């Protein structure tokens, strides 16, 4: 019976290994599996109601790929173009929301990520559909980018895009164009 001590412990260790390391290895083996997006593709995020998600934006040009592993349509959408990562996250406030507070909050969230920080003094931004928000630069070691926040009474959205400075410069115009297509359906409770 003392043998069960050893093989039993071995079985537990094996199960831990399969779940804790085997699944990540399988994920790695599947590769990026990103889905290339055609220009004009409209993507939407947020809790689905009657088949509609409340936060949308449009991909303006070719070259952007949907990162399926890092995208959860309920909360966020992540796109990549070469080494540049574009991320849109949905914000569900617990009370009245304004862009200034959302910008400060995004600054803390970005800093917690450890790769970059928001620069102070954001500038106002208005999207093609009249949604107003704040935008500003984002920078870190060997990284450049932009960020934007949009707030409505019941819902908000944050956008971050960053990558190596040279790669980011090449798509900065596309990022800005994409950011200016963000729409938030309202009211959304």
């Amino acid at each position: 019976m003392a043998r069960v001590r050893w093989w039993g412990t071995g079985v537990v260790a094996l199960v831990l290994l399969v779940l804790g390391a085997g699944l990540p290895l399988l994920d790695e083996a599947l590769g990026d599996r990103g889905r290339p997006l055609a220009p004009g593709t409209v993507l939407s995020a947020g809790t689905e109601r009657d088949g509609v998600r409340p936060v949308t934006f449009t991909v303006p040009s070719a070259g952007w790929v949907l990162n399926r592993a890092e995208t959860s349509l309920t909360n966020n959408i992540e796109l990549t173009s070469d080494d540049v990562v574009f991320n849109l996250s949905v914000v569900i406030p617990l009370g009245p929301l304004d862009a200034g507070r959302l910008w400060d909050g995004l600054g803390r969230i970005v800093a917690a990520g450890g790769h970059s920080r928001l620069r102070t003094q954001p500038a106002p931004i208005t999207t093609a559909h009249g949604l107003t928000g704040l935008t500003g630069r984002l920078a870190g070691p060997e990284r450049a980018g932009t960020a934007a926040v949009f707030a409505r009474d019941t819902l908000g959205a944050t956008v971050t895009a960053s990558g190596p400075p040279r790669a980011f410069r090449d798509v900065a115009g596309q990022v800005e164009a994409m950011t200016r297509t963000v729409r938030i359906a309202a009211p959304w409770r």
Partner: protein
Amino acid sequence: MAMMARDALAHRPAFWLWAAACLLGAWVAFRGIGAHVAAFPGGAIAGVALLAPTLAGAVWIVRRLHPVRSRPLGYALIAVAWGGLAAFGTALPANAAFQAVIGKTAGPGFNSTWGAAIAAPVDEEILKLLGVVVLALMAPSAVRGPLDGWGYGALSGLGFQFAENFLYVLNTIVLTGATQDANAAFFSFGSRVVGGAWWSHWAMTAVGGAGLGCLIGRVSRTNLAAAAGALVLAMALHSWWDAPVLSGLALMPVKGAPILVAAIVAYRLARRRYLSHFRRTVNAETASGVFVPGEGHVLAFRKWRRKERWDVPAGEPRRLLSRLRATELDLIEDGLGGLEPDPLAADRLRADIRDLRHDLRASAANPRVA
């Protein structure tokens, strides 16, 4: 005695696996959420302040959920630590990878709707249940049947629940744009603990643990089927809870009721089985003269065992009486089975009972035990 028990634990490979898995899990969890704890200290402190007393209270209740004697604190903490550190720390990369695989193969739309309902039940129910297995390997006397499996499964689930609820406090802060940290902590606590703790991880793993306890108590095809069935049921209940149906705070009780009912039914069945064995053994040991008539009644209730001690002089006689009752309960539970049954244990315990009774009689204690 406590030192001896610690030494015995340290001689088993499962103890070192438990310690390593808990340390590794804590490290993975720290790497995963440490930066957010540092970034949102107010919300993190509020979260711990709300969750820690809840965990302590819940552990106390589950330890007492035994018809005859409370579960030892040390074993309870081993199960809680496994759930909160080892299982939770392993579940973080496992769930992320599993959901990424679903997203890559079935698409982000399917993943956002069904990913959690598919990945979490498989990963988390297995990982939490391993806490019962590890405890049985570390201390075979701790898990002898479905009632023990139920209790330690629930405790492992409680540890996991605490860690996950803390993660959700941080997630809620991010989801609300880091604009109201403390409010996010209160909101998360309200929805996940006040509204959802009644039918959460503890209940699902208690169901799986009860089945596993049957198998650990006695290996047979029927018990293997019971263990597999209970694990599948626990996964199905978990999947039901994560599924995108009956969503919303108002419907939480409706959605959670089947999970709570399953846990209660599993407890009642396990308790009935334990008490039936208890009565059978008491009758047999009384007939053979090991127990004195009426002793089984005292053994069956914590309150009577406590009251009985008041009639015995403090000091050595009272200690002897406590040891006698503990040894008698050990003898009763020895017959339940376990991972490492010792065929000589019952006779050894009977001899100990005779010796303790003799010593107690010599110390002029309560005549009822003589």
